[in-house]
């Protein structure tokens, strides 16, 4: 299929240089692409869609008249990352995870970093994600963020920038795993020829990490799901199946004498580790949100007594707040005495007067985000918004400055993507997954989310984003 006439525009393109030359790590793929007719490419795309449907790789969307279940479109042109580029990413992500974990342990215990004035106390202690109930707690093995899914983008300068540290049960890893299986069927020879690092042992690594949290020789592990109506239910059941552990929901569990039991056909059975995919405050109505019907009454007391391990530990949310994000480079320096390997996006905190004034004056150049919102909601992309929207956000910021941060608009890199009009560039981000078990490990692969609409920068699945398989080369 032809790629002549492909325009990488003013953005960084992962496959082509600005002069239109194929980058070295895409050469083999480019060869395959040249030999494949457009018709065949569209056929491969069609088969991939069919396979996804039959696998039931769906996520649920509300307020959408297309029905409850939707497929996350998987584009068949992969995003390829050369090995040396990956090595740097890997080192940077390990460093960041390590520092954030130390930060969490500190702010719930000694609070040295607050006392030393590196991070403002009120930012942390007044955050709604700072859980009073966790003060003085050290989770099993001192690990807070067991599973992290950091969002990064590559800007015009060809450098990666961290966008968000997702420390509260990030989703999407099942797409990384299933997409790889589908794409392997599309280009079987290429995998032989070029060598792509495997991701398929992720469930085994995840299980080992979870088992590591208990001192029992054969701990009972479960995945705790909010249930079938949760948008990531497919992933919850997929991971439980792949790990060979129970998928439990709140109603299946019962706490007696600070011990958590599953209700089985043969009576009660103790459970030792929960990979919980329920938000902190829904875990236990007795400790947190009393209206939660998803959690288990008494779970938190059992956790405090050391009778159940929870991954991720409750309370991690405070560290991936968009305002705390601005302090991460300082956090890394403070605990590790190292320069951050990966870049932060310059961030204006509307809580600071000077920053706020700058944001109000330059709102048409900036991306404004709510500190506590996820999924691309509560967000203003200045250059693409109308004057009315600018004014609306100015008022919002003035009304509640601590709730907003702003960043310069980043130009997300593009990857060639199969569209009805041939192959065109589409913007992407990158979400690698990091496991913190006996050591910190970055899985050599990622979820690449792609904004399928021409020119769009919003990659979220709930707003018209798709995905790409991500190849890390040997």
């Amino acid at each position, binding site marked *: 299929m032809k790629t002549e006439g492909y325009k990488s525009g003013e953005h960084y393109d992962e496959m082509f240089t600005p002069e239109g030359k194929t980058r070295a790590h895409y050469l083999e793929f480019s060869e395959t692409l040249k030999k494949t007719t457009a018709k065949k490419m569209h056929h491969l795309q069609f088969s991939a869609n069919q396979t996804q*449907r039959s696998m039931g790789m769906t996520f649920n969307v509300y307020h959408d008249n297309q029905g409850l279940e939707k497929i996350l479109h998987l584009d068949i042109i992969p995003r390829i990352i050369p090995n040396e580029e990956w090595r740097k990413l890997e080192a940077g992500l390990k460093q960041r995870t390590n520092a954030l974990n130390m930060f969490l342990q500190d702010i719930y215990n000694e609070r040295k970093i607050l006392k030393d004035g590196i991070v403002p106390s009120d930012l942390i202690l007044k955050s709604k994600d700072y859980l009073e109930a966790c003060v003085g707690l050290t989770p099993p093995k001192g690990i807070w963020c067991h599973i992290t899914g950091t969002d990064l983008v590559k800007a015009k300068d060809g450098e990666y920038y961290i966008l968000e540290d997702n420390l509260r049960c990030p989703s999407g890893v099942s797409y990384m795993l299933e997409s790889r299986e589908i794409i392997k069927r599309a280009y079987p020879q290429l995998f032989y020829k070029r060598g792509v690092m495997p991701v398929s042992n992720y469930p085994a690594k995840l299980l080992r990490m979870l088992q590591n949290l208990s001192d029992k020789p054969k701990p009972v592990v479960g995945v705790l799901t909010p249930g079938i109506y949760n948008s990531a239910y497919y992933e919850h059941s997929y991971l439980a199946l792949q790990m060979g552990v129970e*998928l439990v929901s709140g109603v299946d569990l019962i706490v007696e004498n600070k011990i958590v039991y599953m209700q089985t*056909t043969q009576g009660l059975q103790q459970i030792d580790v929960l990979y919980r995919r329920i938000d902190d405050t829904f875990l236990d109505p007795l400790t947190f949100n009393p209206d939660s019907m998803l959690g288990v*009454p008494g779970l938190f007391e059992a956790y405090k007594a050391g009778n159940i391990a929870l991954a991720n530990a409750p309370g991690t949310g405070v560290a991936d707040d968009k305002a705390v994000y601005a302090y991460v480079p300082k956090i890394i320096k403070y605990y590790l005495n190292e320069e951050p390997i990966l870049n932060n996006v310059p961030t204006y905190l509307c809580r600071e007067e000077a920053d706020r004034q700058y944001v109000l004056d330059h709102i048409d150049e900036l991306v404004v985000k709510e500190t506590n919102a996820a999924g691309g909601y509560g967000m203003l992309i200045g250059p693409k918004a109308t004057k009315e929207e600018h004014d609306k956000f100015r008022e919002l910021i003035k009304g509640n400055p601590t709730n907003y941060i702003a960043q310069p608009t980043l130009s997300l890199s593009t990857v060639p993507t199969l569209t009805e009009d041939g192959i065109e560039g589409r913007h992407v981000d990158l979400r690698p997954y990091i496991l913190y078990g006996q050591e910190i490990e970055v899985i050599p692969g990622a979820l690449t989310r792609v904004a399928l609409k021409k020119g769009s920068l919003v990659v979220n699945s709930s707003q018209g984003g798709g995905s790409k398989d991500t190849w890390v080369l040997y």
Partner: protein
Amino acid sequence: MLSRVANHIYWLGRYLERAENYARFIDVNFNLMQDLPVDMKEQWMPLVAATGDLELYNQHNDGFDSKKVLFFLAFDERNPNSILSTVRSARENARIIRENLSKETWEKSNELYYMLLEGVEKKIWKKEDPRAFFEKVKNQILLLYGIADSSLARTEGWYFRQLGQFLERADKTSRILDVKYHILLPSEDEIGTPLDFLHWMALLKSVTAFNTYRRVYGNIAPASVVEFLVMNKYFPRSIYYCIKEAESCLHHISGNSEGGFNNSAERAIGELRSKLEFGDVGEIIAYGLHEYLDELQIKINSISNCINSNYFIIRDNFSSQSTPQE
């Protein structure tokens, strides 16, 4: 195994079996109608009656032309027992517990669901000859059984699904026998005529029993058909066989290898099994087949309730309680 999961597996078994039975009923009835004289075409009412949803049908329809009945039995979402509804329920149960199914079993039930949606889109019930579609549905379910049979471990989950499947099958065999028998019986003077033969053949074919029956009994006689479908020891759709298999599933689940019973479900099913095992067809007919089958269906329901209270009910750690399926 989690009680909630066992519950879903049990109902997965029941819904799949229900869907497969309906697909076959429709297929066989179509065949029958092609063989009937012109003035006797459109014999769809008895089939609707056999499903137990005659009342619901009449609420939404006038008359029994094939398109209406076909739509009602296969695609009507207002009918909780239509193939579409049961396949959707089966898939929903499978989706909830898919970590307990093999990947292929899940994928086949998912494909089955999309097959039905496609049927709705193509308006299969308006087709002159829709049999190919129902054949496909039936085969998809049989394929699913086959994959499960050769890939699933014989642990609790397996036995809960089998349990649901066999109880559902016993119920369906009893229903089709009940209705057809009573339509066929009054035409005593027609016994032995080609028309009569066609009807009995259709009944037997509805439960895939025709060939086996012929081999065992040769001629078609009402009492023999009843005996075969109620009490045959070897035919996998006879009521006795289904109940015996379901009993064995319950014993596997509780680990009862001694015979007798360990709980109320085992007691109820053991009682029913021995009644069937030591019954006599003459007595059944003298007692009244309809009354006999009616009681049998009630017993199957009460066994299902016993299974629910022994294995599926979970202690409420809040105040809400899940509603049972049916």
